[in-house]
C-alpha cells in the first residue's frame, strides 16, 4: 500500500519536474494525467487498490516473510551437491531417485518486486493467507476506494468553468505563464552558473545514459516488473530535464501513456487499460484545446481562439476591437540561443508581432465548434432546469395518491399495512427514525411528548401490521379503524412538533394529496 503511494509519488514528482522545466502541451498532459489517475476510482486500482485474484498486499518487510529464509528466494532448479552446501537444501526426493545428492538452487528475489505492487500476482505466494491485509489496512483501503465522485464532479466543473469563462481562461493562461517564467529563471540560473567547457564531449554522458537504458531493458527481459516502467519513465524524464529540452507532445504523450499501461497491474485488465488510455486522450484533448501552451504552433492556435472568442463577445457587446488592422496582438515567443560559441549569451525572451495571415494558417476552426456545442448544451440544460422540480413533484403526488388508495382497500390487512407504513414514514420524516429494526420495536423508541397511551396504541397497531404482513389470517375491519385513528393522531402530534424544514419535507414526500 505505502509502496504504491511511493511509486505514484515518484511518478507525480517526475511529471511535475518535467512540467517545471519545460512547460509545453506534452508536459501539461502528463502532469494532468498523473493528477487525475488517483481521482478516478476505477483507475486508482492501477496503483493503490489490492483488488485482484489474490491479495496484492506486500507484508511489512521482515514480519512474516523473513520467518522463513527460503521465502525470500526463488527456487530455480537443482544441481549436484558440492561439499559445503547447506544440508537442508538437499532435494532428498530427487536425490533418492537419481542415486546422487542434488541440491536445490535458489535465486534471491530481487528487491524490485516488493517495491511495486504487481509482481506477486504472477506467482502464487505460498503463504498468501498470512499476507492478507490486516483489518485496519483494509478499512483504510476501502476508504480510499470509495468513489469520491464529488471531488471528480467538482474538478470537472472547474475545468468546464475554465474552459468557458474567458476571465478564468485568461487567468489560467496567466498562471501558466508565471510558472513558465519561473522555469525559465531556473534554466537561466543553470545555464549561467554551471557553464560547460567548450571542448567537453557529450559522448561520455550519452554512453552513461545508454548504459543505464540498456541495463533497464535487460532487466525488463529478465524480470517483468512494473518498477521498470517507472524506472524507464524516470530515465526519460531525467534525460529530458538534464539536457533542458523536451520532446514534442506527440512523442512524449504516447510514450508516457505506454509506460503507464506497462505499470498497470497484471493480469492485464483490458477495461482498465482502455479507461486509462481514454483518460489520457481526454486530458490531451482538453489540454490541446484549452491550454496549448508555449509551443509555437499550438500557442498561436490557442491565441486565435481567444481572439475569436473575445471578438465574439465584443461583437455581442457592441465594442470594436482596439487593435490596428493587420495585427492581432503581441505574444511572447520563447527562443533559446543554442549556438555553442556564444557562451555569455543568457537565455533571452523576445516578443514579436504575428500578422493575421499567419494567424489564419494555424487557426483550427473545430475548437470553436466544440465550444459552441458545449455552450449549446449548457443553455439547454439551463433552460430545462426550472421544469425539473415540477416533474418531480408530479411524480411524487401520483405516488402518494396511489399509496393513499390502499387505505380504502377491500382487504383490511392490506389497508392496515399501508396505513401503518404511512405512520412509520411520518416518524422517519420528522427525525424519529429508529433505524433498521422491526416496526414493533419502534414502540420503545417513540419520541417523548406524544399523547398519553400513544405507545400502547402504536404497539397494538404494530401487532396488527405484523399479522397483516406475515400471517395467513384475515384481519377484522376494526383494525383498519384503529390504524386510521393512529395515523390521524400521529399526524396531529408530529405536525405540531415538526420544524419548518420537516414540514416542507412532509408536504413534499408524505401527504401531498391532502
Amino acid at each position, binding site marked *: 500500500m505505502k509502496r504504491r503511494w511511493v511509486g505514484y509519488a515518484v511518478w507525480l514528482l517526475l511529471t511535475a519536474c518535467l512540467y517545471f522545466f519545460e512547460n509545453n502541451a506534452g508536459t501539461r498532459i502528463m502532469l494532468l494525467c498523473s493528477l487525475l489517475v488517483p481521482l478516478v476510482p476505477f483507475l486508482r486500482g492501477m496503483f493503490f487498490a489490492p483488488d485482484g485474484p489474490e491479495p496484492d498486499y506486500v507484508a511489512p518487510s521482515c514480519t512474516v516473510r523473513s520467518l522463513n529464509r527460503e521465502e525470500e528466494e526463488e527456487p530455480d532448479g537443482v544441481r549436484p551437491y558440492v561439499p559445503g552446501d547447506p544440508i537442508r537444501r538437499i532435494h532428498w526426493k530427487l536425490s533418492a531417485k537419481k542415486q546422487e545428492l542434488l541440491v536445490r538452487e535458489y535465486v534471491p528475489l530481487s528487491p524490485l518486486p516488493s517495491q511495486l505492487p504487481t509482481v506477486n500476482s504472477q506467482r502464487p505466494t505460498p503463504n498468501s493467507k498470512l499476507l492478507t491485509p490486516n*483489518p485496519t489496512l483494509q478499512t483504510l483501503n*476501502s476508504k480510499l476506494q470509495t468513489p469520491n465522485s464529488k471531488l471528480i464532479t467538482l474538478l470537472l466543473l472547474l475545468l468546464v468553468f475554465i474552459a468557458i469563462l474567458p476571465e478564468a481562461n485568461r487567468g489560467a493562461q496567466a498562471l501558466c505563464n508565471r510558472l513558465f517564467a519561473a522555469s525559465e529563471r531556473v534554466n537561466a540560473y543553470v545555464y549561467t552558473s554551471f557553464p560547460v567547457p567548450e571542448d567537453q564531449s557529450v559522448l561520455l554522458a550519452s554512453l552513461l545514459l545508454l548504459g543505464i537504458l540498456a541495463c533497464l531493458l535487460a532487466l525488463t527481459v529478465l524480470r517483468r516488473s512494473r518498477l521498470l516502467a517507472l524506472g524507464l519513465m524516470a530515465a526519460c524524464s531525467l534525460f529530458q530535464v538534464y539536457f533542458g529540452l523536451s520532446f514534442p507532445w506527440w512523442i512524449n504523450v504516447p510514450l508516457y501513456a505506454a509506460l503507464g499501461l506497462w505499470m498497470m497491474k497484471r493480469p492485464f485488465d483490458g477495461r482498465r487499460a482502455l479507461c486509462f488510455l481514454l483518460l489520457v486522450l481526454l486530458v490531451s484533448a482538453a489540454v490541446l484545446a484549452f491550454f496549448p501552451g508555449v509551443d509555437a504552433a499550438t500557442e498561436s492556435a490557442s491565441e486565435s481562439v481567444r481572439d475569436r472568442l473575445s471578438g465574439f463577445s465584443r461583437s455581442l457587446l457592441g465594442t470594436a476591437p482596439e487593435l490596428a488592422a493587420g495585427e492581432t496582438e503581441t505574444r511572447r515567443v520563447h527562443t533559446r540561443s543554442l549556438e555553442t560559441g556564444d557562451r555569455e549569451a543568457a537565455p533571452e525572451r523576445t516578443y514579436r508581432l504575428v500578422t493575421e495571415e499567419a494567424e489564419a494558417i494555424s487557426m483550427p476552426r473545430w475548437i470553436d465548434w466544440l465550444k459552441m456545442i458545449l455552450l449549446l448544451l449548457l443553455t439547454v440544460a439551463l433552460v430545462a432546469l426550472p421544469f425539473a422540480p415540477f416533474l418531480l413533484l408530479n411524480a411524487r403526488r401520483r405516488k402518494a395518491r396511489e399509496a393513499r388508495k390502499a387505505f380504502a382497500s377491500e382487504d383490511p390487512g392490506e389497508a392496515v399495512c399501508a396505513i401503518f407504513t404511512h405512520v412509520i*414514514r411520518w416518524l422517519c420524516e420528522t427525525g424519529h427514525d429508529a433505524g*433498521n429494526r422491526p416496526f414493533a420495536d419502534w414502540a420503545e423508541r417513540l419520541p417523548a411528548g406524544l399523547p398519553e397511551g400513544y405507545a400502547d396504541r402504536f404497539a397494538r397497531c404494530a401487532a396488527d401490521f405484523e399479522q397483516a*404482513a406475515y*400471517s*395467513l389470517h384475515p384481519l377484522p375491519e376494526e383494525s383498519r379503524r384503529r390504524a386510521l385513528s393512529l395515523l390521524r393522531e400521529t399526524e396531529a402530534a408530529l405536525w405540531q412538533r415538526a420544524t419548518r424544514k420537516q414540514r416542507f419535507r412532509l408536504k413534499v414526500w408524505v401527504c401531498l394529496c391532502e
Partner: protein
Amino acid sequence: MRAQLENVLREVEKAIVGKRPVIEKILMALLAEGHVLLDDVPGVGKTTLAVALSRAIGLAFRRVQFTPDVLPSDLTGFTMADRESGDFVYRPGALNGANLILGDEINRASSRTQSALLEAMEERQVTVDGKTYALETPFLVIATENRVGTAGTQPLPYAQMDRFLARLSLGYPDYEAQMAMLRDRQDADPLRDVACVLDREELLALQREARAVTAKDAILDYITRLTLASRAHEAVELGVSPRGALFLDRMAKARAFLEGRDYVTGGDVRAVFQDVCAHRVLLKENVREAAVEQVLEELLKKVENPDRSRLFPGMKK
C-alpha cells in the same frame, strides 16, 4: 403464550432463578427439534437446568460426563456374548431410552466419541454391529463446553458445531438472582419442587404445531439475505451454511410459537439470529474472536428487515 409452555417455564424457573431468556431459548430449541450447545463456565447451573427441564416435561434424562476415555460404545451400546444362552445380546448405551441428554464438557471427549454422539444427534438413531436402534422422541442433546481450562481438550470441529441448532450461554446470575438462589436453597433442594406439567405426547404435539407456523416469503427472503450477507462480509472466512439458514427458520418459527403467534415476523428472526448463527461463522485469521457478535450485529443493522423493505417498495438495494 401457550398455558402449557408457560407452566413449563414457571416450573423450570423454580430451579433456575433469573435466567428466563435462556430457558425460553432452550425451550425453543426443544420445539424446533434441535440440539443446544451451552458455552459456559462451570457452576452456573447447566445440569440443574437440564434436570429441571426434564422433570417439568416428564422426559427421561441422562447425563454423560465426557472424558478422553469415554468410548463410542458407552453412548451407543454394544453387543456382548451371553454365556448362558450363547447368543449375542445388545446392551443399550447412554443414548438409548433417553429424551434429554446432557453431554457435559463435550470438548473433553475423543473425536471418535464426539462423532458418535453427533451422528446420533443428526440421525436420531444408533447403529451397532449393523443393527439400527431408533432413539426416543423427542431427543434433545444439551452439550456443554467450558471456555476455561481447555488444556488437553478436543475442541469441536467447525463442521460439527454446525449441527447444533443454537449456542447459548447461561452466564452468571445477577445480584438479586443470586440472593434469591441462596435463600431458596437454605433448607431444601428446589429441584424437588419442580412438578411435571407436560407429558411427552403433548410435547410432540406442540412440536408438530411449531413446525406448522407460517413463514411467508418475505421472511424467507430476509433469512436468505442475512445468510448471504454473512458469507459476503469482509471479515468472514466462512459464513452461515444453508443448514444454518434452515435452522434459523426453524428457530424463528419456534420463537413465534412460544410467543403465541402462528406466523413468523422479522423480529423473530432478529431475536434468534445471534444464538443460531454465532457458532457457524468463522472469522478470518487476523480478526479477533470476540468480534463474531459484532459482525452479526452489523449484519442485522445492514440487512434491511422485511418491515422496512415495505417502507420504500420498489427501491431495491
